């Protein structure tokens, strides 16, 4: 069965510093992968998505992620964090043509001044 692991429950980054949030997935085959962001008291919004193709995908607000089949990973990166990036980030996996979308437990990003 597919699963997603986000090993870091909380990450603190200084404003202006770079960021990497980790995501490991378990799926037999090539999955579709997503990163979502959740701002306080809001639903989840899509940051970026990976469909089979270029392993580096660009998202909104300067975010990007890199798919690695050999490492079963889909890490999220940003070159320079802004205070408005303070949120919870979820990695998700979905099989091609499937119904079920499985989410990781989320990583809370805190931005320090």
């Amino acid at each position, binding site marked *: 069965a597919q699963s997603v692991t986000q090993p870091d429950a909380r990450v603190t980054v200084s404003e202006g510093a770079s960021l990497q949030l980790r995501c490991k997935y378990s799926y037999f085959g090539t999955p*579709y992968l997503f990163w979502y962001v959740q701002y306080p008291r809001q*639903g989840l919004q899509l940051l970026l998505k990976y469909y089979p193709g270029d392993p580096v995908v660009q998202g909104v607000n300067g975010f990007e992620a890199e798919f690695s089949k050999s490492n079963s990973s889909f890490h999220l990166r940003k070159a320079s964090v802004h205070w408005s990036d303070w949120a919870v980030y979820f990695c998700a996996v979905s099989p091609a043509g499937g*119904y079920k979308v*499985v989410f990781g*437990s989320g990583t809370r990003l805190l931005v320090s001044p």
Partner: protein
Amino acid sequence: EAAVTQSPRNKVAVTGGKVTLSCNQTNNHNNMYWYRQDTGHGLRLIHYSYGAGSTEKGDIPDGYKASRPSQENFSLILELATPSQTSVYFCASGDRQLNTEVFFGKGTRLTVV
């Protein structure tokens, strides 16, 4: 723009009472989902549906029923609410044919006392 609307946004229920959470989507999506979000668990799938008249069990269906009377509407029903069901519930919709991302509502905060 894709729209998923949940009602109510906040609900206080009595232990043993019946609770119905409603969700409406105007995206004409086949798939709809109910998740609950709890600290430390991220998003967990309760029920999902791939079209009007269908409901499927997710990962944590016990204590919940679902109903999909039409393409647009998907309800989550707690026949006998318990304090352990206190949580934030999210509805989402997605297009199976395109295998694109899912779109979330803003959530319903349910407190069972």
